[in-house]
């Protein structure tokens, strides 16, 4: 058995006795430490990076959650702070970003699509299928009605100017690329890839 200062190591009761601590005559201290820590449990938090959802500045976040994403474990976000390594914000957050934990846990947070039919007073929860079908239907109807294929001079322009779209602020380059492709292929010109608020 060799000692090393570079390889991975594991601390066990047996290992400590043969360690430099044991060999110097402090074996009892090692045993006392192993016994003292025995009744305690480990706490556990998951650490992940993310981007603030609020605006196009896109500050970096560190998010801490309980639960290890194992089977049957319920995950719960416990803390959000600015990412000190992110070149945009270096750990700082604006008041809205600093309150993100409350946004995550807000009882009024929208988690499913809701629909208020024309003339109705209340929103009611609907399925994603219903919401997507409804949006597609309305977009199709409006595009069929207002699509501009040629301008006054007869040049082909393929514009759809009567509907616009705002995309999310925390979108990656890939998300932006896909958003652009979807929206522009319909001829939509009133479009911002990142919500500027």
């Amino acid at each position, binding site marked *: 058995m*060799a000692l090393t*200062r*570079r390889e991975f190591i594991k601390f066990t009761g047996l290992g400590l006795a043969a*360690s430099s601590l044991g*060999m110097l005559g402090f074996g009892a201290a090692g045993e006392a*430490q192993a016994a003292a*820590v025995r009744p305690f449990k480990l*706490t556990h938090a998951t650490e992940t990076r993310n981007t603030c959802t609020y605006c196009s500045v896109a500050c970096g976040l*560190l998010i801490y959650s309980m639960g290890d994403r194992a089977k049957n474990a319920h995950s719960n976000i416990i803390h959000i702070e600015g990412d000190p390594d992110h070149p945009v914000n270096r750990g700082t957050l604006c008041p809205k970003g600093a309150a993100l934990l409350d946004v995550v846990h807000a009882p009024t947070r929208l988690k499913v699509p809701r629909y208020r039919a024309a003339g109705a007073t209340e929103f009611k929860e609907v399925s994603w299928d219903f919401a997507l079908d409804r949006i597609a239907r309305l977009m199709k109807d409006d595009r069929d009605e207002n699509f501009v294929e040629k301008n006054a001079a007869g040049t082909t322009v393929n514009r759809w100017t009567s509907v616009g779209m705002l995309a999310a602020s925390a979108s990656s380059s890939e998300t932006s690329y896909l958003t652009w492709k979807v929206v522009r292929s319909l001829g939509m010109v009133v479009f911002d890839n990142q919500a500027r608020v």
Partner: protein
Amino acid sequence: MRQFEAPPSGKWTGPNHAGVKAPEPIVLADPATRFAATAKRLAKLADGHPMEAWLRFMAALAEAQHAVATTLAPASSLNTASVAQAVNARLPPLAADGHERDPSWREGLASLLDHIERSELPPAARDAIEQLRRSDAAALDKLADQFLRGGLSAADAAAAVYVAAALQVYFTCSAARLKADDLRLLEERSLCPCCGSPSVDGLITATGVTPGTRFLFCSLCSTAWNHVRAVCITCGGTRRLSLHGIEGDIGVIKAETCGDCHTYAKLIYQVQDTQVDPYADDLASLGLDILVTEAGYARHAPNPLLLVGDDEAVAS
């Protein structure tokens, strides 16, 4: 919208404390305070600690290191050209395993042994001092090489602590002669940019211009270097990182475990205790190491003052 005006010069004109700043990539240790701070913190942590006897010994060892670092200050004399050559090749200029040691490190060791001998020691610790005193220069250098490059036999574990302590002083004093601006982070970010050694742990700062950043502390030359947080320092993984602490404590020390490579590295949160010392707090938190090991993780790299045998380690 501003148009047709002179373009902004790009220079910050507000107060100095405002705006976001990048952290210093490399911070070299000051030999005048490095070991004294560790000794002071160890003495404080030792009170009522289950490992009090050992921590007091470690405090005495750090005191002896401080005495050597501030009097003899054994160090190599690297010329700027060889430093620049190594840095350009993205190699550590003081590479622990390739560097040709100045013989003064042995004088440092002798002086260290003289100092540590004055404190109360168990017989085994005294025997190790005698063993080193009986060894000739060649034997001491062989022991140092084995410690630095691997292949140290378990029988030398006790003597290796004094050798490691003397080499820490030697490398810390050598690193202090370099300029941080001349150095560059290695591509392997978990290794010291100065000597290529692994870190003892990481400190999450709470003060300075970039609070909240992580600095890894070299186990040999005491250099601190910036490392991105929430990234496994062993494999670079980010997907399955967890922070483990001991239930009920105030959260000064946590172990960052990686579910991909099953290793961990300790993090010390300065915001919870401004008096922390990365070297002292690592030794005093052995209980966390034991619990995290039981949970199935291996430590990134050992503290050189607490070497543990490993069956998988390859003896040369």
